[in-house]
């Protein structure tokens, strides 16, 4: 659309004037909306469904390190969280369980990746029972055997059994946890084992 306009109206001023009209408003961002909740009210025969604006949650005041670029640096949490810190991880989640984009949350690239990995591990451990994807209507999921797991690096469906474990000098190890969290603070003397 824009290319055609450039060809047909070469003069810059006309272009800008034309572009400023309909195209700009259609590409403009959608009107501002905050978080809403859906409320259904039944009044006799008429049902009113309206979305009420809930207040957008704000960052708590007085972060310990206001000069940090991302929320984690500001709150001094750089190497201190893991998959079990659900209260922190749930702040970056959508209600269906997906992660929010980095440009919205303001995290740095490595922290975003670490949090993404922790969220995946927490989902696999079953720590977010209410952040489930919305299933289509009338769909009853098959009952699978409930196995307790934690620190799962790979998705359970994608992993193959290790039939040949290898000789003593060439063992096939099983991955536990994530290499992104290698630099976490450890309060015990035991080193962190990433491969069992």
């Amino acid at each position, binding site marked *: 659309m824009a290319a055609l306009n450039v060809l047909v109206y070469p003069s810059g001023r006309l272009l800008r004037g034309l572009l400023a009209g309909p195209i700009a408003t259609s590409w403009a*961002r959608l009107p*501002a*909306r*905050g*978080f809403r909740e859906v409320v259904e009210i039944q009044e006799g025969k008429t049902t009113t469904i309206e979305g009420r604006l809930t207040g*957008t*949650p*704000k*960052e*708590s005041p007085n*972060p310990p390190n206001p000069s940090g670029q991302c*929320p*984690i640096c*500001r*709150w001094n*949490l750089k190497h201190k969280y893991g*998959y*079990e810190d*659900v*209260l*922190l991880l*749930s*702040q*970056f989640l*959508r*209600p269906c369980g997906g992660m*929010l984009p980095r440009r*919205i*949350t*303001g*995290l740095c690239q490595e922290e975003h990746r670490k949090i993404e990995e922790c969220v995946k591990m927490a989902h696999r*451990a*079953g*720590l*977010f*029972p*209410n*952040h489930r994807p919305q299933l289509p209507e009338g769909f009853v999921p098959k009952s699978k*055997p409930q*196995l*307790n*797991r*934690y*620190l*799962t*690096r*790979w998705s*359970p469906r994608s*992993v*193959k*059994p*290790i*039939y040949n*474990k290898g000789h003593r000098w060439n063992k096939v190890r*099983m*991955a*536990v*946890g994530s290499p992104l969290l290698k630099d976490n603070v450890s309060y015990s003397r035991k080193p962190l084992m990433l491969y*069992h």
Partner: protein
Amino acid sequence: MNTRHIAFSGNKWEQKVYSSHTGYPGGFKQVTAAQLHQKDPVAIVKLAIYGMLPKNLHRRTLMQRLHLFPDEDIPEDIRKNLVEELPQPRKVPRRLDEYTQEEIEAFPRVWSPPEDYRL
């Protein structure tokens, strides 16, 4: 007791393979931990303890003295003889709905979303 609720770290439920040979030709059986747990919930803990004991003739007698049960129901005579309960080796993390509303509110919000963002 209640070995049915055992947890494995990493992807061991799918990756760990328990192998055995019946002695007959073509009798090499390899079973993943998940399948073994389905067939017999007690077997994983039993094999783990069997591997941790010293590899001498005492091992069999020590295993005979060990009693494992998949669920909470234990026969009365064993329940009466219980002396101590071992503590949990690893802290079980709490789910999001196990936190009280006050704890959730007391935890500071780390970032504020822009005014016009829709989830």
